[in-house]
């Protein structure tokens, strides 16, 4: 396993770095069991997803394996996923992150300290953002990146441990040497801050940013 990087990503780093765009027609083809469509989607998204899983695992093989596993799961789940009006890309990201964290824990022999799998989300896809919501987010990535930078340092640090190391609240408190209650309130306050700012950015008013 390669040494972990000191600095952590906190969002897209430049205007040139664009995220994945929408592929509504592709998802419909995948749902219709078109392997070529899945491979096309893989070709377009894998470089971007691999960067994420590599950040989590710090291991090239594990990172690639996590991305591959995610696309296999997409293949299996595709008939159940809504392919009209919703973006499945967030599903891919959440799944890839989860698989990558599992690879990392398997390799290190550690167990995660908190409950992880959101069971009800596996049974329903009502939580998937609409394509319009996803497109709006993609159009405002640069502003949203700034929001993450505005978090107080201790909140940002705790959040990055959650996102990239997959640590639960108690593990974060131990890692930072802080009381659990402080970490919990900090994480909640941080998410409240991000949520409020995102609502501003994703609405029509960006004057606060």
């Amino acid at each position, binding site marked *: 396993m390669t040494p972990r990087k000191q600095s952590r*990503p906190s*969002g*897209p*780093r*430049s205007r040139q770095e664009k*995220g994945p765009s929408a592929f509504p027609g592709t998802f419909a083809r995948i749902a219709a069991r078109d*392997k070529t469509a*899945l*491979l096309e989607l*893989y*070709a377009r998204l*894998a*470089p*971007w997803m*691999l*960067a*994420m899983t590599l*950040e989590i695992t710090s291991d090239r093989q594990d*990172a*690639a394996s996590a*991305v*591959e596993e995610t*696309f296999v799961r997409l*293949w*299996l789940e595709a008939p159940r996923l809504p392919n009209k009006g919703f973006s499945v*890309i*967030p599903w891919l*990201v*959440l799944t890839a992150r989860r698989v990558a964290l599992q690879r990392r824990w398997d390799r290190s022999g550690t167990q*995660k300290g*908190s*409950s*992880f799998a*959101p069971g*009800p*989300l596996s049974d329903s896809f*009502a*939580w*998937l*953002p*609409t394509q319009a*919501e*996803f497109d709006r*987010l993609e159009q405002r*990535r640069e502003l*949203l990146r700034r929001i*993450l930078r505005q978090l107080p340092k201790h909140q940002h640090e705790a*959040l990055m441990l*959650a996102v990239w190391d*997959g640590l*639960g*609240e108690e593990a*974060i408190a131990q890692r930072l040497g802080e009381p659990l209650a402080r970490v919990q309130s900090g*994480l*909640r306050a941080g*998410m*409240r801050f991000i*949520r409020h700012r*995102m*609502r501003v950015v994703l609405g029509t008013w960006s004057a606060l940013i």
Partner: protein
Amino acid sequence: MVCPYLEDLWELYLLGVLGAEDANTVSEHLATGCPRCMEQMREATLTVYLLAQTGRTVRPHPKSKASLLRRLRSH
């Protein structure tokens, strides 16, 4: 369950950060299909998506597509 209590938990739930008690509370409430909370969950999903961005790309191994295709054929 009072939904507003959960408002601060959606993203942390998706990230797997919450302790077992809070996570169970969220799971149980989601299982009710509460439309207000599902809407907030969609918003939280976008936030987590954004948080998981590195801003970089990494080129996959040249044989990765072939490897994926082999996996697909077994399903």
